[in-house]
């Protein structure tokens, strides 16, 4: 097959190039230039493009660079800033997958006559009856099914995850055996467009107004202040200027009222969580999971917690339909998940992605 492989300059996509080549595919590597601004995180940088290009040369495949920085700005950076203006906590890496890798790049691949687009994600695609579904990667510690959960339908049939069935150690060994310069390169951790020097505050401060806020306890008593209410996240403990004493967590953030409420860990707990902007890659809506017990993951490598899916009466639960919501009721109370965060639902064997959504109400 003629395969377009997204190469970030990391070890996973480097090893994917070797796997695809050895499987006899006609592979072209492509690095997407996404972030046009400055970056000092070593991600999305010229040196990553250099690494990807050199790996492609060593593997013996062509390498291209596509400039998708306009799309990245429109679909990832802009919404990231908007979310902070609204006091929610976005997940830009998921939006990048949704809009760039699994939309823009797929469209480009089809237009140019490729049979498939591949990435270095640790996830698998498994047949299920007549269709396909996303499955956790073989290496549970590195599993990335969470960030690719939105893949559905025809796109799933077009996408390949060549290293999804491998352990990370095998990936690194494969890259090392092939003599690739990325074999020992550390995994990327940070949001690529946020520099490590200026940080999130510096980045957002240059694109939006940040406002100071009072830090209060549950009774409304003022305990201190923070410089930027927009940068405070539910569950946060540090950076509140409260000094020592009992452990206190952020239990509520109100951007509109410029107020951060802190309390003990108990106050963070909730009985359930409500999700909007739903995606049901396999089923199309929530009918199949209504009343069912599912496993819920609320961050990239977070723990799974059991919950039951409740569908509000008379409400649509279709893919991304406006106003559609479901409520997950925890089997045991869990820490609240910040509004804006992505939540992914797995089956009770913790193997297959059932669907996902974005937190609209953490209580």
């Amino acid at each position, binding site marked *: 097959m003629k395969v377009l492989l997204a190469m970030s300059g990391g070890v996973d996509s480097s090893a994917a190039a070797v796997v695809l080549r050895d499987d006899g595919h*006609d592979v072209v590597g492509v*690095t997407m*230039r996404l972030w046009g601004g400055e970056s000092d995180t070593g991600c999305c940088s*010229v040196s990553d*493009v250099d690494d990807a*290009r050199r790996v492609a040369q060593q593997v013996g495949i062509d390498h*291209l*660079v*596509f*400039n998708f*920085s306009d799309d990245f700005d429109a679909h990832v950076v802009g919404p990231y800033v908007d979310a902070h203006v609204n006091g929610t906590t976005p997940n830009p890496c998921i939006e990048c997958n949704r809009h760039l890798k699994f939309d823009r790049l797929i469209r*480009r691949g*089809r*237009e*140019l*006559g490729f049979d498939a687009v591949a990435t270095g994600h640790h996830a698998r695609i498994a047949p299920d009856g007549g269709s396909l579904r996303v499955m956790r990667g073989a290496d549970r510690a590195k599993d990335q099914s969470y960030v690719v959960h939105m893949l559905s339908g025809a796109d799933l049939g077009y996408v390949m995850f060549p290293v999804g069935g491998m352990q990370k150690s095998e990936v690194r060994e494969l890259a090392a055996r092939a003599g690739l310069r990325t074999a020992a390169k550390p995994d990327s951790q940070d949001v690529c467009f946020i520099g490590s020097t200026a940080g999130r505050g510096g980045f957002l401060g240059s694109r939006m107004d940040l406002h100071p806020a009072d830090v209060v306890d549950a009774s409304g008593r003022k305990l201190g202040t923070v410089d930027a209410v927009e940068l405070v996240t539910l569950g946060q403990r540090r950076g509140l200027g409260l000094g020592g004493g009992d452990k206190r967590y952020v239990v509520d953030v109100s951007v509109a009222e410029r107020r951060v409420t802190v309390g003990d860990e108990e106050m963070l707990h909730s009985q359930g969580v409500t999700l909007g902007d739903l995606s049901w890659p396999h089923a199309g809506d929530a009918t199949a999971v209504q009343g069912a017990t599912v496993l819920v993951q609320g961050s990239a490598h977070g723990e799974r917690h059991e919950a039951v899916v409740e569908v509000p009466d008379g409400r649509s639960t279709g893919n991304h339909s406006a106003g559609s919501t479901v409520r997950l009721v925890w089997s045991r109370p869990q820490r609240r998940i910040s509004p804006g965060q992505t939540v992914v639902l797995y089956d009770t064997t913790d193997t297959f992605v059932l669907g996902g959504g974005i937190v609209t109400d953490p209580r």
Partner: protein
Amino acid sequence: MAGRKAQGKHVYLDHAASSPMHAAAVEAVQHYMGAEYANPSGSHALARSARRVIDESRDIVAEIIGCAPGEVVFTSGGTEGANAAVLGAVRRGNGRAVCPAAEHHAVLHCVEDTGGTVVPVLPDATVDLDALASELSRGGAAVVSVMAVNNEVGSVNDMERVARVVRDCAPGAVLHTDAVQAACWTDLRELWRHVDVLTLSAHKFGGPKGAGVMVVREGTGLAPLILGGGQERDRRSGTLNVPGVVGTAVALAVTNSNREGEVARLEALRRRLVDAVTSRVGCATATVPRAQSVPGVAHICFEGLESESLLFLLDEEGVCVSAASACASGAMEPSHVLAAMGVPRSRMMGSVRFSLGHTTTREDIDAAVDAAVGAAERLVAARS
């Protein structure tokens, strides 16, 4: 993958990026990389031999340009020449640099970096002379830099008229022309008559990469960019690149003697290419009228399509062309030239530069036309 590329055959239409070296230049370069290796600044027999060939090369270049041999400075290429002219004049002249918005980044970034001013261009990418006159009338210009031929779209600035504006409005300013894309198409003697500094890059006219020429009119105040051993009469230090200098002179001589015939031959081929592509592809238009651009550049905008996709499909057919400029990562950046010309974004994003040169044949043109039409049809179909 398609036939031509799989067979290792290419249709090379990227001469404006780099033109294949003339055989005589290759031979000369090889000789001075092998048998004659001495530093021409020395005093022994081998050094004197190397010095002799530098002096001969300088004479050849001076004769072609119509300048004094002492006005020829050998450089490492076009970017160094542009930097030396603009930064050198700013440092010596105690004033600001001025250039049009469609200049090559080698000039534009020097002007911007020194706090100079950028004046608008007309829709064909030539400098807006009224805007230039009004900017220069403010006073304080140390150097004005206007390219002879635009590297992206091929349009030609009328340097006689540019010079008149500069001499009238800023009599003290140094006038530099980046003539990197002009050497194959225009009479350099005519160009030189109007300017104080003229810069060339050898690999654009069949010479080696890493070599170029800066011609500086006697008495022009330029602070040297590179300090050191004082070579090139203290105007550009660094051991002379003997093979590069010889290759430059040989290639320039070949180019100069073939110019008239090549201009006519390639004008006909360009017409064939542009006419065929624009008549067969509905969304394709020539970016600038052919009368305003050199024969070597066929710049075409495919409205609604994307350059990256067009280039990929052309490359699959073995056709080597360019689109705008690439940044450090290799990604294509939206063209500052087309933006300055006011080309709408929907046309700008689908621009392709086919550039012709001394190796281009009619078969190349016909293959490129077929590939371009095929690529555009495929992309149009994918969108509908």
